[in-house]
């Protein structure tokens, strides 16, 4: 569509597209540590049932995913792989950082091998605090992300080069 390049997407169209994007998100689960089990409980258990939010938790590869949940401790050895995985995702892509470790290092704030926060390597949209956060907290994080997507200006988002974080 030339509309994006010219920056002239009509407001109702933006809203319509955003609404559809909001309720059809594929999430790539990046289960790293303890939080992965709570994420599993949120995504795989009938009790929390993430699909009612319009989130589909089973893409086969990051190339099909809309957003990524980094759940757990990112170590320095793992960091390149996290970065690479994020790079493989198609734009527009979003990241939820789940749990204290992914947010800031958490209990391993002084460890020699832990990356103190995944936002050092990839941009994060929503931080879910907790050690580990309850599944409900992750669902709340997803709802916040959906709100963010809803209010996004598509022309702004897709204009120019993809976001690069140094």
């Amino acid at each position, binding site marked *: 569509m030339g509309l994006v390049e010219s920056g002239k997407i009509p407001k109702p169209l933006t809203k319509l597209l955003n609404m559809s994007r909001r309720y059809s998100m594929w999430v790539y689960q*990046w*289960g790293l540590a303890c939080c992965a089990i709570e994420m599993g409980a949120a995504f795989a258990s009938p009790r929390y049932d993430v699909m009612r939010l319009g989130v589909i938790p089973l893409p086969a590869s990051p190339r099909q995913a809309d957003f990524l949940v980094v759940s757990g401790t990112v*170590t320095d050895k793992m960091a390149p792989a996290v970065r690479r*995985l994020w790079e493989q995702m198609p734009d527009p892509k979003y990241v939820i950082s789940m749990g204290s470790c992914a947010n800031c290092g958490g209990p*391993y704030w002084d460890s020699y091998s832990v990356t103190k926060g995944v936002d050092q390597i990839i941009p994060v949209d929503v931080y879910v605090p907790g050690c580990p956060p*309850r599944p409900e907290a992750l669902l709340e994080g997803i709802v916040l992300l959906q709100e963010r997507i809803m209010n996004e200006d598509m022309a702004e988002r897709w204009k120019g080069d993809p976001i690069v974080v140094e």
Partner: protein
Amino acid sequence: MVTTESEQMAYIAAQAADARVNVEVETDEGMTLNLGPQHPATHGTLRIVAKLDGEKVVAAEPIMGYMHRGYEKLTEVRTYPQVTTLVNRIDWLGSFANEVPFILAAEQLMEVEAPPRAQWIRTVLFELSRIANISLFLGDMAVQVGATTPVFYAFRDREFVLNQIERVTGGRFHPNFDRIGGLKDDLPKGWIEETGTVIGKMRDFCDEMEELVLGNEIFQARTRGIGVIPPEVALSYGLSGANLRGSGVDWDIRRDANVGLVYDEVDWKVWTHPDGDSFSRFWVRLQETREACNILEQLLGGIPAGPIMAKVPRIIKVPAGEAYVATENPLGEMGFYLVSQGDLTPFRVKIRSASFSNMSITPWLLKGVFVPDIISILASLYFILGDIDR
């Protein structure tokens, strides 16, 4: 966009290199298959590099360290009460069980003994975390051989156990409830009766799993005679827990080297299986979950009254000495070798975690198996990454 041919070639090469991360890489002799570090069968972040000859594994090498968080160094700069917060997170499925050996080691050096009530409640929570841990294994093992339904059942029924743990400790996952000299709090009102019902539900869950998985033809074909570990080999690699008992070694720390918990007070049985294959490891774990229900039922009936905390100093300094305490955790033997020099912090803590030793057998075990069996063998060995990498 106009690009030169060399630019295009470079782009294609880069894409190919990118795509190769998780697929096969051809080498001079045969093929190298890379599993992980992000792979559903590796429970997180284990990576396995296998050299293949056709469908057969010539050599397999686990590469870990993607979850290495430096526990042993960090314990040297944490005070004793802070250490339990940390060690909770080693085996994140049965967290309460991690605290117990450390606390017991510190109690041994301080010559403090928890009051009987605290010991009973510790044992109850220990067994609850065992059920919480192994029930997920039962579902997960089925997923790894291709059946998706059991894992949903596991997640569903596990919630009941987590609820009970949460009602006592306040934490679903990381209770941090154990204290040197006892426990943080007493049981809430009505908890014992409720746990009784939960035990009934877990029994049903075990029956369901047995019907759904154990008798299944495909499951049997994928696990019977696969990944056989003879008892001698299992011992020399330091396998413990259900992996050892699945090889027919009748050894359980709860019965044979019990420290500080009240397993002597109840009547229970250690399950072993002589086959040593993936199936027997699954079978032993299933029986152990049932046995844990039995233990719990007896324990809940007999919790003695009394205080839950012995008198310990406010600021905990552990006298100089060395102690090694191991307990039979859901994954196997977990032990803490605690060296104290009379300081606020431990001088050295060596964490003997079960999965590390259990996984050290994989290069030996995966030699000569077929590619799909890698997954079922790994699943049956049952490891948790935090427990391997620490």
